[in-house]
């Protein structure tokens, strides 16, 4: 059976892509964020995943309002990035792990999750930037991927409780995959930020720190909040913590914190990174 090694959650702000393209990792503005990654790279080098299941939210590259799935799972042989309209460089294609895609689809639908399945799927910055942060500077990605997209564009969004349950089901699916492979779950987005409205620029450090703590000591803590609560507490885009919650849900009862980092701001965002190992 496959081995679930752990999970990594991190922000996916487009400015990170600009910084990578311009080699600004050591720039004083960006350094506090990029400094969160070397310990994560060391851990990845030690646990050697073959596959990354990446939980992210599309921002209008693959999905538009004509068809907006709540949960979509990629089942493509390859996933391409493309122009999103505001000019960050397009990253090389990602090889898909189709065997795990279909095992996930069978397993999740078997557990009553009504998914959309995608044999063609563009992946946007929310997918590509965390990959570039976790495996920097490689010409070819060292892992195969399965993208899982959660709708955070059009309300109603799936609840925190439902995203937690989705994560749990993803964890069970990975652990029942009949393959001698090592799998890491990656969740992208957050933490608190708001791009739109008179409340643009809203950040909630206290909540973010409590949320990061909760993922280790009391992982279902955030499931008590409604989506409206989460928007109020973390901003309209802060609800991307749903991907963190789902990732944690996949990892089982007990985790060991490998590393964490939290920095305000990258662009408009409180940028966080958390790496957790399954115990």
């Amino acid at each position, binding site marked *: 059976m496959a081995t679930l090694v752990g999970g990594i959650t991190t922000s996916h702000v487009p*400015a990170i892509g600009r910084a990578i393209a311009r080699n600004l990792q050591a720039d004083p503005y960006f350094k506090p964020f990029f400094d969160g990654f070397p310990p994560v790279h060391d851990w990845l080098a030690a646990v050697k995943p073959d596959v990354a299941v990446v939980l992210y939210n599309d921002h*209008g*590259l693959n999905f538009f*309002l004509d068809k907006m799935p709540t949960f979509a799972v990629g089942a493509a042989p390859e996933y391409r990035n493309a122009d999103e309209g505001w000019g960050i460089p397009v990253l090389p294609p990602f090889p898909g792990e189709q065997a795990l895609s279909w095992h996930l689809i069978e397993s999740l639908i078997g557990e009553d999750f009504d998914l959309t399945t995608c044999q063609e799927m563009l992946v946007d910055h929310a997918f590509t930037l965390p990959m570039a942060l976790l495996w920097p500077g490689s010409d070819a990605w060292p892992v195969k991927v399965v993208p899982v997209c959660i709708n955070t564009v*059009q309300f109603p969004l799936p609840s925190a409780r439902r995203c937690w349950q989705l994560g749990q089901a993803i964890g069970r699916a990975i652990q029942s995959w009949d393959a001698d492979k090592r799998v890491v779950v990656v969740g992208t987005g957050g933490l608190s930020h708001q791009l739109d409205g008179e409340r*643009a620029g809203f950040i909630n450090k206290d909540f973010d720190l409590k949320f990061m703590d909760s993922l280790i000591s009391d992982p279902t803590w955030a499931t008590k909040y409604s989506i409206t609560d989460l928007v109020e507490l973390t901003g*309209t885009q802060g609800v991307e913590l749903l991907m963190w919650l789902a990732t944690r849900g996949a990892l089982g009862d007990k985790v060991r914190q490998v590393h964490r980092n939290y920095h305000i701001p990258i662009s408009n965002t409180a940028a966080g990174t958390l790496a957790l190992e399954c115990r």
Partner: protein
Amino acid sequence: MNASVGRREIPGTTLFDGAQARKGYALNKMCFSFNDAANREAFKADEAAYCAKFGLNDAQRAAIEARNVLQLIAAGGNVYYLAKFAGIFGLDVQDLGAQQTGMSKDQFKAKLLAAGRN
């Protein structure tokens, strides 16, 4: 059960719900088209014709013409698609934030830095 599931107002915040998604469909569809560089050029070449092609209503057309983010949101725009419109002018989300909060970009950046010091 969730502690609170009812709809309520959050000041300075518009949830992009079904009502907004219906109202803003044409506007967001136009902005979604700006993923394609050729479409960005077509918009720049003849803005009125490009808006007409997508069937924008008067409020949406006026908000596009004014480059006004709050008006675009009021007309049903979603910030993820509006960001692609802003990209045509080389504007980033901090430019949008500054405009929406009535600050200069430097003031807006200072507000974000201050949030990290609290």
